[in-house]
């Protein structure tokens, strides 16, 4: 009996502990339909909390994140589209709030930098492979006459040392 009780208490404690981990911020909003709920979830994940900078606003417990979630919910209710809602946030908090930055002259490097680096790596690789091939084709593994003479001389020297 005692053991059973202990197990239940332990289970409850574990369960509660996990529940806390699962999701930090929980609001109760009534959405019109599943599509709107999905848009809400997508938007709150795409926008970054200005206060606790490494969390999206869906995840953050900061009061400002709660305010922004409320604003998003309000704007969804007003029938605004995603672009309008993101613009609303960017107008106030800057490009910083977008986890998915807009493509502009300033973010060009951010978007294409990795691709450019990868392409650069392939170019270097191609050059190395081609050079290797070229040297193999020319029979560079064999010694030239000059080199053979030098080798013979060196070997001779070695032998005289012995």
């Amino acid at each position, binding site marked *: 009996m005692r053991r059973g009780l202990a197990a239940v208490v332990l289970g409850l404690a574990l369960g509660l502990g996990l529940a806390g981990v699962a999701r930090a911020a929980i609001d109760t909003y009534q959405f019109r339909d599943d599509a709107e709920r999905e848009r809400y979830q997508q938007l709150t994940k795409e926008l970054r909390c*200005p206060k606790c900078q490494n969390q999206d606003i869906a995840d953050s417990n900061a*009061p*400002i994140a709660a*305010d922004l979630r409320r604003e998003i919910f309000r704007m969804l209710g007003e029938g605004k589209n995603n672009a309008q809602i993101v613009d609303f946030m*960017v107008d*106030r*908090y*800057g490009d*910083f709030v977008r986890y998915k930055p807009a493509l502009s002259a300033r973010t060009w490097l951010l978007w294409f930098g990795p691709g450019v680096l990868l392409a650069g790596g392939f170019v270097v690789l191609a050059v190395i492979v081609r050079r290797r091939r070229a040297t193999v084709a020319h029979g560079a593994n064999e010694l030239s006459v000059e080199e053979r003479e030098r080798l013979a001389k060196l070997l001779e020297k070695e032998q005289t040392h012995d």
Partner: protein
Amino acid sequence: MKRWIMVVPLAVFLLVAVFLYKGLFLKPDELPSAMIGKPFPAFALASVQGDRNLTQADLLGRPALVNVWGTWCPSCKVEHPYLNQLAERGVVIHGVNYKDDNGAALKWLAEYHNPYQLDIRDEQGTLGLDLGVYGAPETFLIDAKGIIRYKHVGIVDASVWREQLAPLYQGLVDEAKP
């Protein structure tokens, strides 16, 4: 042969070192404001004292600091005496009491002195949201036409005033004179 290749690691190291060195002086928790150069957002809110209704038009006419504060914010308490000093020296400061209990705000202003010309009561945080406020204290510098020119995140103290705000404020005051 191919001596230059030996310089590559050094070059990479120097490049990384430059970026890391720069990183030492970055303040990632201070966001650049998206509001610089834009007009102060429209609002219609009561004063903290409840005796008048305020709008953005009330801020026009002379350059001013707009200080966003709340009694829940410990740093605001730290900067408050310095704001009092600035107000005494004739600097125009307006207050936005951000997401606060109005009773507590009144008590605070009575107790610690009120440096603000206008006390905007933003209980719901709507003005704060339009200003892109994400904490307190934040201090905006607006010109006589109500355009936001600068934003300081965090405490305004003597060195912040001397090094950042004062030259800009003085510039705006001079600009406002015909």
